[in-house]
């Protein structure tokens, strides 16, 4: 990490992909650092993307460190993200990172990996499944469960369809029926219930809207998952990214520094219920 | 000098427009912000303008009784008086704030009033009291 953690690195946008269009668009930005080589990071860590005059926003790095450059999937939701969505390839932004505690992927070697995502929550999970795919020999089976409101709201749609074609264990779902939809219709937790993933020797990582996480946790417990087998990433308002400003604080944890990755065991030991 | 004018869409903005079309000269320091009605000018905007470095602020609206929305300019005047009195009370030069009634046909009046107001502001010098510095 840099000398002064408040000063961002200069980065350039090298590619922009439209993931979701409509009133709540999501774009994926590929960025390259300008003055230096890419920094080392791990799946699950994030960065603060900084636009001078607008502010800073936290995004989880959406690609695995085994892939080139840095990718951020950005839902247009406020001042910084609205500006980001207006930006073009070649524009400069600031990046502070990598920040936070990553997924303990090294500890999970030899285990089966199950990712359960909803909506934009797929982002950190993508950094996991890409990593697991790239290091196939180190891990057991990979199961990807992902759902969104409609087929148009699925993030990384093309990539996921390609994974299905390649024979990966990918289960997609949408909330309401649509003509031409070949996969499951219903909420993500229902899809998990339907698939009944094996709890033994498996790590489940879930990320998505709070209500989805809540119900999914119950489903996983029914399926025999233990608390330390379940991981999730939390969202809080963040400003400094280094555990100083106190905004993302939950108990004595700072989500930006000690998270955003937490095991369910850690979360359930907290007084403040998430 | 920087002068910010909040001009109502229906009268004063058209009046300023007429001044331009009639090739009447008024100071180029005058920056016009078009608002739908002088009644929507929030006193906070005026203070914001001073904070961002305006030397004078004008609220320009329709003549009493002519408001497109019937009564907007009465509210404008009410707020204007309150703000002006309060600014004066804390020791700010309240002459920097002006209320102007100018109809769509009063291009000449608009130009003249602007020139006169610029004079007033120039005599007061640059506005430093509320200008923001790091």
């Amino acid at each position: 990490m840099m000398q002064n953690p408040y000063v961002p690195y200069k980065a350039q946008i090298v590619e922009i992909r439209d993931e979701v269009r409509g009133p709540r668009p999501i774009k994926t930005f590929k960025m390259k650092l300008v003055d230096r080589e890419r920094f080392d990071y791990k799946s699950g860590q994030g960065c603060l993307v900084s636009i001078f005059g607008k502010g800073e926003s936290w995004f989880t790095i959406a690609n695995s460190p085994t892939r080139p450059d840095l990718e951020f999937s950005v839902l247009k939701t406020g001042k910084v993200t609205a500006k980001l969505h207006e930006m073009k390839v070649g524009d400069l932004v600031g990046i502070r990172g990598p920040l936070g505690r990553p997924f303990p992927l090294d500890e999970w070697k030899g285990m089966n990996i199950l990712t359960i995502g909803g909506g934009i929550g797929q982002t950190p999970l993508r950094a996991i499944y890409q990593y697991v795919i790239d290091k196939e020999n180190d891990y057991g089976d990979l199961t990807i469960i992902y759902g969104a409101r409609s087929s148009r709201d699925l993030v990384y749609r093309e990539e996921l369809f390609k994974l299905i074609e390649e024979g990966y264990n990918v289960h997609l779902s949408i909330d309401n029926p649509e003509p031409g939809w070949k996969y499951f219709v219903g909420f993500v937790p229902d899809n998990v219930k339907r698939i009944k993933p094996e709890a033994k020797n498996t790590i489940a990582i879930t990320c998505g809207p709070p209500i989805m996480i809540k119900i999914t946790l119950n489903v996983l417990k029914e399926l025999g998952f233990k608390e330390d087998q379940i991981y999730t990433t939390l969202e809080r308002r963040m400003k400094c990214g280094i555990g100083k400003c106190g905004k993302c604080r939950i108990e004595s944890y700072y989500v930006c520094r000690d998270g955003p990755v937490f095991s369910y065991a850690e979360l359930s030991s907290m007084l403040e219920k998430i | 000098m920087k002068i910010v004018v909040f001009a109502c869409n229906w009268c004063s903005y058209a009046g300023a427009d007429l001044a331009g079309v009639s090739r009447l000269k008024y100071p180029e320091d005058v920056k016009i912000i078009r608002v739908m009605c002088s009644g929507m000018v929030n006193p906070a905007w005026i203070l914001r303008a001073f904070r961002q470095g305006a030397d004078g602020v004008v609220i320009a609206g329709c003549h009493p009784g002519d408001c497109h929305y019937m009564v907007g300019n009465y509210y404008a005047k009410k707020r204007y008086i309150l703000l002006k009195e309060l600014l004066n009370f804390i020791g700010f030069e309240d002459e920097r704030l002006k209320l102007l009634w100018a109809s769509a046909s009063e291009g000449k009046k608009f130009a003249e009033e602007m020139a006169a107001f610029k004079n007033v502001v120039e005599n007061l010098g640059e506005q430093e009291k509320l200008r923001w510095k790091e």
Partner: protein
Amino acid sequence: MNEVEKIREELKKSGAERIVAFVKKENEPREVLAVLSQKDIDKVTFSPLSVNNPAKLLMQLNGKVAVVAKGCDAMAIRQLIKEGKLKRENLFIVGISCRGVIDYRKLSKIEKLSEIREVRLEGEEVVLKMRNGEKRIPFAEVIEENCLYCEHPTPVIYDVLIGEAREGRKDFSDLEKLEKMSREERWEYWISQFERCIRCHACRSVCPLCYCEECIVDPSNLAISPMSTAEDKASYPRLLGKTVNAKDNAIYHIIRVLHHAGRCSGCGECERACPMELPLRKLERKLEKVVKEVFGYDLNEDIPFFSKLDMLGD
């Protein structure tokens, strides 16, 4: 029966489930507001240290509430009724004809607070029941300055009145000193005051009339909803930041006070809450004066000041 007993009696008679009244604070002679039920009625107390305005607390409560209100509190309650924030039929107001309250900070300079056990008013004197014995000090020495210019010491709205109706003062002589200063002197005075402000927003938080869900100095409460778009939020005007400096503080206080023109009940909560002792009431008083003298508006009118059309000519 003394004043406190009368208050308890009336609160009991009201039959209201909830009571907003003063209770003694632990460790200090001052009193604080509390929401009580009928069974706690013996905790209710009242003295010249019952300074706070209960109107803000009332807005949180539903159903029938009995409340102890001084003159200024009643002004605030009536204003909130006028603005549709409180319902008259839900309130049982025990009005107290007020002689003024003690400035706690002044008192703390005169006497050691930890020694004081009880405070009451007798004639023109404040009787302090101390740990050892009793002390008397002239009320004029510790009365809150704001109370000296109180226009409505007797509640303008009440169900029962305790004490005799009193005449208020209607002049603005407290402003004379400042108004006589030159403009530059005034600016210097005010900027040295605003310089102290730490922007804790206590003045806003305690003011019964500052009930906006969103304040102009930190907007986005309303902009941020599940339905609002990024553009809504991004283009939402931020008129003032969090920066603390004399100029920004001045703008904050001017905006805040402007919103109270023709509404301020004069309770002085803002000044009392201010840890930096800014003379915020002076700003409010100035507007009171303008409202009265320029607009000829009387706070007792049924139409709120801002809704009233003033045909002030050109």
